[in-house]
């Protein structure tokens, strides 16, 4: 592997052995794999609402996602690593995001961007999924309505941290878990519980 000392910081995990050719170094496989994965996370943007605008701002020059190896927006699920759901998810889009998630190849991660994607947000109504974690597994939740670009970047860095803690030996991390025979990802009572209103929204008066 051509990691010379000049490139990517060789942390305590890896070192160049003195007396050997500088074109060689030893490292842990996990470190190397995770370094590669964190450094080129290709996002699959799933922008459904206002949060998507802030996502675009994050990708544009001022905040510049490319600094984190996310230069390329992969609008094909087959060539992407992280699904970023930016915006509220209506029930009508639930099978779509599930299909996209299923089409993504392992390894894959999901960031839920914003209050709506994470919990249903202000849309506690008949049309909206109350948190995309009832439909696909989520790795990082970014709060905010919408989160500022800094917030999303922090979420991405948290995901980097999470990936750096993974190990290639643990196959369960990469296991596909399709919908079970009830047609859901989670047991029904868990979905109901995740969808319960909380915070301010339980005190609101509602018609009917």
């Amino acid at each position, binding site marked *: 592997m051509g990691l010379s000392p000049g490139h990517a910081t060789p942390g305590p995990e890896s070192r160049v052995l003195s007396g050997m050719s500088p074109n060689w170094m030893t490292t842990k496989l996990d470190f190397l794999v995770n370094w590669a994965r964190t450094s080129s996370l290709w996002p699959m943007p799933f922008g459904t609402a206002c949060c998507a605008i802030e996502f675009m701002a994050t990708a544009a020059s001022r905040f510049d996602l490319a600094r984190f190896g996310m230069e390329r927006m992969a609008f094909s699920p087959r060539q992407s690593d992280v699904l970023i759901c930016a915006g509220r998810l209506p029930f009508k889009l*639930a099978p779509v995001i599930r299909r996209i998630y299923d089409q993504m190849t392992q390894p894959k991660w999901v960031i839920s961007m914003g209050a709506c994607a994470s919990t249903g947000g202000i849309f506690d109504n008949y049309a909206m999924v109350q948190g995309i974690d*009832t439909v696909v597994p989520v790795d990082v939740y970014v709060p905010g309505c919408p989160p500022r670009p800094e917030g999303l970047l922090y979420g991405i860095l948290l995901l980097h941290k999470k990936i750096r803690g993974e190990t290639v030996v643990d196959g369960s991390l990469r296991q596909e878990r399709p919908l079970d025979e009830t*047609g859901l990802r989670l047991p029904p009572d868990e*979905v109901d519980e995740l969808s319960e209103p909380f915070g301010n929204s339980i005190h609101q008066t509602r018609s009917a």
Partner: protein
Amino acid sequence: MNPSVDALRRVFGPRIGRALVSCGDTIVYVDAGRVAEALRWLKETPGQQYNYLVDVTAVEYRDPERPLEVVYELFSLDRRAALRVKAELSKDRLEIDSLVPLWAGANWLEREVYDMFGITFRGHPDLRRILMWETYAEGHPLRKDFPLRGRFSRAEQVRQALGANPEAHYSMDELSIAETYHELPEDMRERLARGERGVIPEPGRERGRE
């Protein structure tokens, strides 16, 4: 008050109900059975020429005694005049004539009113839900008796939503591939022909058309 109201009264007599001005807009109530006829007259009569149907929508009031109203926003591009026509429907007979023969643009507007209020438009060529998916079984969301969070549990809602077939949200016409239909791969033809009927593990309770 828009002079078209008096003109309407001369032609349709007692079929024209009360008329009022609200925020500068004239609103006229027309008998639900004659509304298509009155709108055709407003569209085609020289001097009226309301040739643009801006919107079709409906209102249900909280007072359960009050009928539902179907609202038509008309605008005359030539005369720069606007008129709002309303028709009242009693809650046990939510039916009215479709305007698609008059304005092709009424198609999706009426589908939306059907989807949200459950009003049937007689003579509509393709009266399907448009905002909610076709297998949506909880009723018509903008009706006052519809609970804000829907009728089913959240788990059931997620289950039914995930059972829908995302490809089939579009009809063949919408995809403009009707002509090339026979050249499509077998499985895609099958999906399109099936329409929006997704595969739901167990048949949901049908409450669509109450």
